[in-house]
């Protein structure tokens, strides 16, 4: 449904988006991750036809966004960053306007408005003026606007920004459910949302794609993925790590904690130690050594760690500086 090929956008000397390519098919939910200023919103603005690309091609449903903007825009529902809405209208008026702009009139319009009011839980504010809405409700109103014509393509820029935890959950569920029949792209800073709603995620940093895959694939890029943590009673942690290092399956071991007579140690696998071999060999070691094993667990990769390790170089020095100055 969405095909983006080598997209570039420069603002003056700055390359905000620098050669991004991806495709999204019907039934896919693509998550956009990346630090502030990475170029997520700029990419979405180009896909929705709001700003023209400096170079590259975008097609939505087979229509080139630059050459056939109206046909492409008809297929897209868009929630811009910060959820703008006309301040001088009521929620009902605003949604009716959006429906009419999408070619829905009369009974069809009324039905469409009722449907999204219900889906986005806006019943209590339909007659309220948009500029008196709380941030979360304004966000939901703008979200409702984006799905009013039941578009096959949805572009959502931080759809859960400013929502309370219940609403965040509702919106994620909604995205996942709608994603079965639509092509959806959404950006977020909340990494759990990638697991909760995406079939695939892209991490963008400084205008380039630095990672692309299913949530599992991304998580497995974490250093911790496949590492095994073990907790042993009554033995100094240093002794444990010494023994661990002798195993052929262990690349590296690390003391996580030593308290109340328990030593917690993490072992990272060698290529030999992948796919459960590490855990097995650790268990055998513990039996041989007669260790009192309190816990033995293979760790999954963590999205935040992957995110940090991929996009770190820029942010790390800054973070250190602020700590020093304290």
């Amino acid at each position, binding site marked *: 449904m969405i095909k983006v090929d080598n997209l570039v*956008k420069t*603002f003056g000397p700055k390359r905000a988006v620098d050669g991004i390519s991806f495709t999204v098919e019907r039934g896919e939910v693509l998550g956009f991750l990346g630090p502030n200023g990475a170029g997520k919103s700029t990419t979405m*603005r180009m896909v*929705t*036809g*709001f*700003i*023209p690309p400096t170079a590259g091609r975008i097609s939505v449903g087979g229509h080139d966004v630059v050459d056939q*903007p*109206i*046909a492409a*825009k*008809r297929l*897209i529902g*868009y929630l*811009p960053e*910060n959820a*703008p*809405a*006309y*301040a*001088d*209208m009521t929620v009902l*008026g605003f949604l009716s*306007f*959006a429906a*009419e*702009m*999408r*070619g*829905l*009139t009369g009974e*069809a319009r009324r039905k*469409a408005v009722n*449907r999204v009011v219900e889906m986005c839980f806006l019943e209590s504010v339909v007659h309220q*003026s948009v500029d008196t809405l709380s941030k979360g409700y304004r966000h939901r109103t*703008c979200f409702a*606007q984006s799905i009013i*014509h*039941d*578009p*096959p393509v949805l572009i959502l820029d931080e759809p859960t920004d400013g929502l309370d935890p219940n609403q965040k959950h509702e919106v994620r569920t909604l995205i996942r459910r709608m994603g079965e*029949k639509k092509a959806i792209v959404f950006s977020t800073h909340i990494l759990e949302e990638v697991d909760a709603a995406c079939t695939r995620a892209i991490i963008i940093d400084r205008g380039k794609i630095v990672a692309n895959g299913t949530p599992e694939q991304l998580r497995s890029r974490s250093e911790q993925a496949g590492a095994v943590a073990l907790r042993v009673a009554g033995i100094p942690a240093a002794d444990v790590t010494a023994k661990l290092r002798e195993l052929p399956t262990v690349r590296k071991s690390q003391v996580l904690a030593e308290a109340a007579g328990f030593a917690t140690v993490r072992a990272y696998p060698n290529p030999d130690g992948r796919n459960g071999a590490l855990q097995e060999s650790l268990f055998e070691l513990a039996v041989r050594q007669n260790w009192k094993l309190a816990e033995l667990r293979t760790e999954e990769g963590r999205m935040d760690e992957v995110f940090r390790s991929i996009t770190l170089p820029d942010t790390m020095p800054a973070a250190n500086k602020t700590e020093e100055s304290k």
Partner: protein
Amino acid sequence: MSNGETQVAQASGERGEHSMAFHNIKTIAKREISGYFASPVAYVFIVIFLLLTGFFTFMVGRFFDRGEASLAAFFLWHPWLYLFLVPSVGMRLWSEERRLGTIELLLTMPVSPWQAIVGKFLASWAFLALALVLTFPLVFTVNYLGDPDFGVILCGYIGSLFMAGAYLAVTCMTSALTRNQVVSFIISVVLCLFLILAGWPPVLEMLIKWADPGLVDTVAAFSVVTHFDSVQLGVLDSRDLIYFLSIMVFSLFTTGVIIRGHRAG
């Protein structure tokens, strides 16, 4: 395909390109007008407009002392009256859209930018027309006092409406320049002031002292005053209307260029 999708597909398939454009312009204009009346600003504006026209016509223009059954004293002041009133109506057109960020919504809907520009312009123009129509008691007054030439009066109203449209288009253009309404107001007042002064008799008299008459005529030809004067005297020359129309077309076209420029970054 889900239900909504088929509906949209049908809706756009049934209508031709032109009726789709008409539908979009109408929807945008309707929203804009309802925006005016959603706040007290519209009513305040109309009251101020009527009070000021009354003040200029009766006090400054000495309507009763003229002893003629015409609205000349009323129309005489319109170029000056509009100088401040029209920019105050039009200044929000695009600057507000940019300030709120709704321009991003509007221009990612299936409309072309010119449809949005025309829709918004027509809405404000219709609003100005409404204010103008509400001066109708004056027509009854002159009719009661004497035997006016209704042809001349109609000409005056048409000319006045076109002049308002020209000012409004200029304001539309300046409002696209900035997200600050006040700045947009000031720039449009200055631009409209140029349009007046270029043909204002005191300025022309001054110019004639040191420029050749041909040049002075050319300058005067760019002024709204020159064109409005002949129209309000009852001479509905197509050249005058074309003058106003070309200001509108030029300004609205420039508005489109400015908006495209913003998006290109």
